[in-house]
């Protein structure tokens, strides 16, 4: 009898409230049943609470739906679920499109020459020293795909050369970028991109690689210069990284090739995708993935060309910066 009255006490008053945010109140101040020692009874109470909550939510949802139908355009806007993206911690470095200072800054930064001229990028690919040499090397598979994906790129074996020497040689041969695919235990796990004249160097963690041939029903790649889409690079650091990635690919796309490369940033992970698209009509387009697929995460952005000893870092990932789940840097 004691428990019965308790359960009544818990549940009763809240149900009677007819306000629209009662379900929220209920959700946040869900009564505790931890004082009940008996497991069976506790389970019963919990199940009942859950049922009540579900009924409330359902009630609220139906009510809002009815409201929307009745009022039409006048109805209050639909509630959006809270996600990590839309509850992101406010970042002072977010770039607004009309910020003249940032525009001036970008007009003279290391990538300005790429964006202002027609000179196509020339990318040099290599691996980390001592790559595992085997038949079906994942690294080589990835590199072959990258050679197809990035126009005007060449690969050379690392052969115990230091990165600094490689960079000097590439500068002399007019390369614009050096990309080093880092390998660990036979698998590619990082990309170091160094923009050449005196550009910054980025180290990305490379994960979730799916090679072209492994993409189900993939389209065949072509030589056309691709269109480039970059999503969600909103902060100042994000802008620099986006410019860095964009400068790997040539500027004037060949639209007849219908080839598009996407760098999509979400929660500091950059997703690379390559698609072929076709418009059925003016409004509808279909996509077919060409591949490869991979994910990048920025580890550091170093000022100047690669110099692990004396290079100064503009941004370096540190554990102390992971202050909350809702804090992102790109």
């Amino acid at each position, binding site marked *: 009898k004691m428990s019965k009255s308790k359960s009544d006490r818990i549940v009763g008053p809240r149900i009677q409230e007819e306000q629209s945010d009662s379900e929220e109140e209920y959700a946040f101040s869900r009564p505790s049943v931890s004082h009940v020692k008996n497991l069976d009874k506790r389970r019963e109470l919990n199940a009942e609470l859950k049922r009540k909550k579900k009924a409330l939510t359902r009630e609220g949802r139906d009510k809002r739906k009815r409201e929307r139908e009745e009022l039409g355009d006048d109805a209050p806007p639909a509630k959006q679920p809270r996600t990590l993206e839309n509850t992101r911690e406010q970042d*002072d*470095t977010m770039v607004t499109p009309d*910020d003249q*200072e*940032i525009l*001036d*800054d970008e*007009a*003279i930064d290391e990538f300005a020459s790429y964006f202002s001229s027609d000179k196509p990028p020339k990318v040099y690919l290599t691996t980390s020293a001592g790559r595992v040499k085997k038949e079906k090397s994942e690294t080589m598979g990835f590199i072959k795909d990258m050679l197809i994906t990035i126009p005007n790129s060449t690969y050379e074996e690392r052969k115990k050369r230091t990165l600094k020497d490689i960079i000097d040689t590439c500068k002399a041969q007019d390369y614009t970028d050096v990309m080093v695919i880092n390998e660990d235990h036979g698998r590619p796990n990082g990309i170091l991109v160094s923009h050449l004249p005196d550009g910054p160097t980025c180290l990305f963690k490379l994960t979730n690689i799916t090679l072209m041939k492994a993409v189900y029903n993939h389209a065949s790649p072509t030589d056309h210069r691709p269109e480039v889409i970059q999503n969600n690079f909103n902060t*100042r650091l994000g802008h620099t990284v986006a410019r860095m990635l964009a400068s790997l690919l040539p500027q004037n796309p060949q639209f007849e090739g219908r080839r598009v490369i996407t760098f999509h940033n979400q929660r500091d992970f950059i997703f690379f995708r390559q698609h072929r698209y076709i418009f059925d009509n003016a409004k509808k387009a279909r996509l077919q993935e060409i591949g490869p697929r991979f994910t990048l995460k920025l580890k550091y952005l170093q*000022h100047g060309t690669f110099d692990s*000893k*004396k*290079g*100064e*870092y*503009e*941004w*370096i990932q*540190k554990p*102390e*910066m992971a202050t909350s789940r809702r804090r992102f*840097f790109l």
Partner: protein
Amino acid sequence: MNVVVASSTGLVKTYDTKRKQVVNMWGKATKEDEITSMVWANEDHTQLILGRKNGALTTNLLTSGSVQTKHSLDGAVTGIHVLSNDRILACTENGEIGIFSGDEEIEKFTVNRTIESMLFSGSLESGCQKKAPISTDGRIVISGGEGQLAQMLDLETKQTLWSARNVPLDFLDVEVPIHDRCLSWINPQHTFACVTAHKQFRVYDIRAQRRPTLTVDYGERPFVRLAISPIDPNLAVASDTAANFTSFDLRRKFARIGGFKGVAGALRSIAFHPEEPLVTAVGLDRFLHIFNVNTRASVEKVYLKQRMNVVLVSPLKKQEEEPKKELNSSEEESSEEEEEYEQEIEGVNDILELLPTVETETRKRKQSHGNDTTQQKKRRH
């Protein structure tokens, strides 16, 4: 206080910590005119002396940025010092040293070395070496460049009065690499500290010997900048290339006291507040960081959009408080001095509220500083 920041694109911004906004900005965004060095031209902080990457040395008004005097040197200007009689001493990366007065160039000479950091020593009372003449003119300590050690030059005779010597070969009989990045006086007469790009901290005493009197290896990254607190000569802060900003105790041989958190990029310039226990730092992460030196708490972190090379601090002046004073009743004119002092304290209240106030005083200090303290004056350090 006002914090003046010079960006790597040639802009100079003034940030007011009281109003918490950038109150002034001038300069044109360029690549060649990167400001590499900046000092106050005068005591009331109304003029700046800027040194640029292309060797241009200008005196500018703080408010408008208009150029008062202009000179040019060979190479990026890495050190500027204001001498008596409004003369400017400047040195460049390529080893050129110049002394200017107004629009005139008094002297220019070149030393055959890289200069990344320069310290000015006023007249010395005693010579540093047996052979060195006792001179009342200026001497400078210069250092920088891979493999190049510090040396002290006499400005008048251009002779090397003292030069450093590297530490002995290490246990493998290999020469210890040296690349001084930043020098800082511990005692402006004879002792200076330097941090190197090979993770070392060194102290040199010119009176004692050529080799460093203290060498400490610290950290995993090359140092970028060192600064020693003007209030507490035992407190040093240093930044390194990997965004670590740490405070050190010089009494305990450069022992780490603790790190300052929230820094994402290498800090290229550090400036202490002359009176308060605050330190400001700017660098490649595009933020102005203001920390409390004692608690290492972040007082402020301001996004300033460009990568920055130099920071200068200008404490709040009494003149700025006068408009406030006019609002007060005239009765208080009797204890005017007290009033002014009170308002000076009020002026920095919002920052000081965050700082701990230390009210301990020793008898010795009281005696040495005399009796000019009012009741409200609390000793802060």
